[in-house]
């Protein structure tokens, strides 16, 4: 169910800029989010993701540029924007001393929902996020995954047109993360547009319809996961040899090779053609020049590769496993 491209975007951002003193956190960003899609901002911590989200949800005053959310300008119509959106913040923002039901009740009241509707919606949402049995539990007694689910339920309480998720699975174990993704997909299937930020490659990859890679306050590239990967060619080949410099010089002139990047101890080729077919001839070429190959690895480009390619670096922080290890070991996917 691809949304029609002719429909007006549900979020439209043009030349958005935001500074904290001398530091430019968001540097003339423009993008659109289509109605009904899951759109991701993928980038390391400090890339400017949260700043953009905070402007879109009207918590941070817009400094420069245009931001229109659900048809309303964030600066001139903040009230209407607030009524149209749901938010799940980056850190847990649940009152530890309120019960699950009270959290939702409070939220419904904040948004001026009539009592009957609040009641019905709470029942409905607690079933959706499977917290029915925890209804009268204080939130401090919930597990991390349950808290997150409750926050998602809260974000959905007012049936928002857009749900903003700022790093929705940060700090959750792998199993819980997968389940969170299921919840998010279900919510999206019911028609809610989702805007999420993440620094997890797999999260952006598996969850999103479209991804913008953001780094140093700029959008580096936008596209579907497939499109982004395709920009890297068909396959990635990692090689370690006894003379990497010579090997790179030789391989540069091979027609099928698209790009070569050095890594510590070896280098990565991106190739236009099916890697499994051209690899034997590459090996041959190197052997003939007297270069010994010690390690070979062939794989399809992943989101990690896309990220490294476009930002020129591996993720700066704890977010993902060290990218180097992944290049050497073949991965399941």
């Amino acid at each position, binding site marked *: 169910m691809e949304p029609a491209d002719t429909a007006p975007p549900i979020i439209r951002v043009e030349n958005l800029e935001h500074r904290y003193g001398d530091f430019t956190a968001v540097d003339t960003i423009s993008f659109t989010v289509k109605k009904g899609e899951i759109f991701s901002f993928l980038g390391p911590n400090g890339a400017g993701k949260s700043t953009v989200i905070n402007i879109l949800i009207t*918590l941070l005053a817009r400094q420069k540029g245009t931001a229109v959310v659900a048809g309303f300008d964030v600066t001139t119509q903040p009230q209407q924007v607030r009524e149209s959106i749901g938010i799940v913040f980056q850190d847990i*923002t649940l009152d530890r001393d*309120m019960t699950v039901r009270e959290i939702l009740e409070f939220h419904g009241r904040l948004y001026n929902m009539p009592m009957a509707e609040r009641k019905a919606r709470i029942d409905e949402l607690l079933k959706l996020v499977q917290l029915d049995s925890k209804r009268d539990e204080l939130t401090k007694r919930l597990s991390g995954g349950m808290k997150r689910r409750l926050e998602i339920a809260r974000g959905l309480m007012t049936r928002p047109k857009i749900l903003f998720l700022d790093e929705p699975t940060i700090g959750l174990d792998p199993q819980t993360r997968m389940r969170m993704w299921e919840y998010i997909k279900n919510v999206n299937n019911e028609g809610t547009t989702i805007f999420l930020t993440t620094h997890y490659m797999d999260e952006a990859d598996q969850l999103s319809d479209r991804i913008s890679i953001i780094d140093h306050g700029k959008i580096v590239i936008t596209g579907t996961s497939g499109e982004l990967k395709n920009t890297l060619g068909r396959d990635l080949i990692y090689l370690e040899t006894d003379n990497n410099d010579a090997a790179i010089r030789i391989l540069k002139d091979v027609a099928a090779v698209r790009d070569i990047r050095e890594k510590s101890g070896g280098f990565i080729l991106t190739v236009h053609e099916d890697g499994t077919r051209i690899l034997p001839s590459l090996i041959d070429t190197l052997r003939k020049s007297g270069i010994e190959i010690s390690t070979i690895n062939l794989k399809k480009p992943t989101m990690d590769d896309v990220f490294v390619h476009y930002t020129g670096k591996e993720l700066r922080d704890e977010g993902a496993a060290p990218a180097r290890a992944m290049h050497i070991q073949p991965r399941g996917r």
Partner: protein
Amino acid sequence: MAYGFFTIYWRDMIRFVRFKTLLVSSLLQPALWMAFFGIAMSSNFDQLTAGIPVPPGAHVVGYLTFMGAGIIAMTTLFTSLFSGIVILFDKNWGLMREILASPTDRNQIILGIALSGVTKSFIQAIIIMAFGILIGAAFFAGFTLPETAIGVAGILAFVALFALGFLFLSAAIAISMESPEGLQGIMTLLTMPIFFASNALYPIDTFPEILKIISIYNPLTLLINGIRYFAIGPDFIAMGKHYLISQGDVVLSFAGLVVFAAIMFAFAYWRFSRAVVT
């Protein structure tokens, strides 16, 4: 959104009732002040002032009764000033973001917090009055039932206005600050002069001129004027001093508190409208 304040109020009351230790201590503390400080001081002062001649037929009240009004005022001051800390915790734990990102107007947020503070002060004031009477304070002595009812209502009206003023002040400071320690520091700094430059524990007319002027316009003094008028009466002798509180004085004191609360609301509104919590 006109009832948005009630949402904030509702949540704050849930927490007030839920934190059992906080609830009990906040109710017990004023009673303990009355019990220990009140009884200790009055047993001394009443002895000292016993020799002072009083005109026949005058309404003489003991020190416990005199300072009981001061204790109600002091408790209201402390509770109101320190209530801002909740806002700071909400802010630091991210809970404030949910509220600020909602369509609920910021005025309503301030109002909700203030009303729950007023409620708490009401409960405390009533406890002090009841407990005071229990240990011998002559509140409402010689009042008829309707007079007592008017007295209680008058006291609560004064307490409400005064509490609002300091709640707004506290909220305004809290929303502008980062650390609870800093807030605590400011509040402690504020309470000292407000409490002692007032007529809570002693008469102020023998003060040096400057201190006297400060004390007369101190909102705490205005509050205590009102409480004494409604709890003791317009004409009484305490600590050897003759107190005459006219209806005009009461109206003026009340008006002073209205102005004070209004200014503090404006201050809080200004701070809240500029608050960026992300």
